[in-house]
């Protein structure tokens, strides 16, 4: 798959703004789930994992209770698993809480076609029957191919299908936290 080189690069959110968005998203979670009772955050590899850690810190600071966390890698659940489209890496799938009966908030960086989330839903239910699964994304760039919507959205970005929206984070080896929109 050859991608045209991008000539326009727009910063949607710098490090400070990413923090501000996460603050707001944490407040939205608290509004929907007072004291975070019965909820757990589950990050989707790769960027979703540090994002859910950042949210966990905020929620724990605000409520004074511990919020359980998990992580899932969806490589083995992709509908194009063997088509040779590379996943970055196969990461660990782990839940530090019983999935059964928990209200799970899936966390990912960018919501696009919805296929990653579809795979993540399949992966989660293989571990048990959660009470609820909700979806939180830092950015929603549209162009869904599946009927999937996020419950908590950081920013909505107008894009064309040729664009790319990327989140960099120091936790995954980038210099700073930054959400960027690339256009050809």
């Amino acid at each position, binding site marked *: 798959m050859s991608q045209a080189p991008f000539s326009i690069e727009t910063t949607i959110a710098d490090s400070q703004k990413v923090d501000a968005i996460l603050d707001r998203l944490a407040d939205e979670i608290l509004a929907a789930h007072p004291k975070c009772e019965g909820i757990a955050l589950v990050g989707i590899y790769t960027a979703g994992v540090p994002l859910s850690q950042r949210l966990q810190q905020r929620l724990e600071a605000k409520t004074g209770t511990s919020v359980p966390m998990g992580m899932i890698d969806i490589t*083995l*659940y992709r509908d194009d*698993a063997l088509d*040779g489209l590379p996943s970055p890496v196969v990461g660990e799938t782990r839940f530090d809480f019983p999935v059964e009966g928990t209200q799970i908030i899936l966390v990912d960086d960018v919501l696009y076609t919805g296929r990653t989330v579809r795979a993540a839903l399949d992966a989660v239910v293989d571990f048990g029957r959660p009470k609820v699964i909700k979806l939180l994304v830092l950015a929603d760039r549209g162009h869904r191919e599946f009927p999937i919507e996020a419950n908590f959205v950081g920013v909505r970005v107008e894009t064309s299908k040729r664009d790319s929206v990327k989140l960099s984070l120091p936790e995954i080896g980038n210099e700073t936290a930054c959400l960027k929109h690339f256009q050809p």
Partner: protein
Amino acid sequence: MEQDATLEHLLGLRHLTPGQIRNILDHAKRFKAINERKIKKVPTLRGTTVVNFFVEPSTRTRTSFEIAAKRLSADTLSFSASSSSFVKGETLLDTARNIEAMQPEILVLRHKASGAPHMLSRAIDAAIVNAGDGYHEHPTQALLDMFTMEEHKGPISNRDVPLKVAIVGDIAHSRVARSNIHGLTKLGADLHLAGPATMLPTAVESLGVTVHYSVEDALKDADVVMMLRIQKERMGTDLFPNDREYARMFGLDKKRLQLAKPDALVMHPGPINRGIEIQPDIADGPQSVILEQVTNGVAVRMAVLYLVSHRGRPAAPVEVQ
């Protein structure tokens, strides 16, 4: 060590790069986690057909491959020597071409002729996985052995002092030994072989191993002791006189095991001859990981089936913590 995530067939470990071996072992770690879940299944190989073609009897390896394929959601079917047209005189190639006409993606082959998987890999389209060919190789067994070693001893490569592995028994007729020799030396282990002189292949030193004629020398300070199965059908031939003499000269008992490191692992590819190559108290003792080897076999075979199903394209590498 860099992972190399391409694997077109698995014919043996001799022709794999250290990076390809590393990659299979790293993937197996992820697949082992699936086997520890309540729902032990992922949808990855949905629509993929895996044919287990076992021309030589085997229960352990065949069922292990079958479970591995099922846990990846592949469709499996098994042929065995007695039920196939083999008994009607069809050649291996003709049988394989007939199987191929049913369009399986992966063919797992166990055959008494060394080199049979290589021949099929050139003749048919499916990815071939060698499940043991003659006296040649048994790559998935060696991979699960290495995986089990690493679970207990940490990575085999890049150690200050190389991992010392002693392999004892009928080396000459053992495809398990041959695959382990290729795999372990590629990852930098220090290999010591011992067995009756009649069962040590000539010039095996050229593979980078040390050969001993006394089992005590091989076991000294070993991190891993791997005992090979003595095939009873060879007893009474000019290879060795009887099982009691073999047990006395080469069997693993408490006293001999004390020569190895106190935390040495005891391994055996099974099925074991209790009281011949290994005493029951050692086979069932605290240092034995024989049943863990069987458990890990499923994870390693899942990794292999997953990787060859990419048909030579690289799979996503595994994140290493």
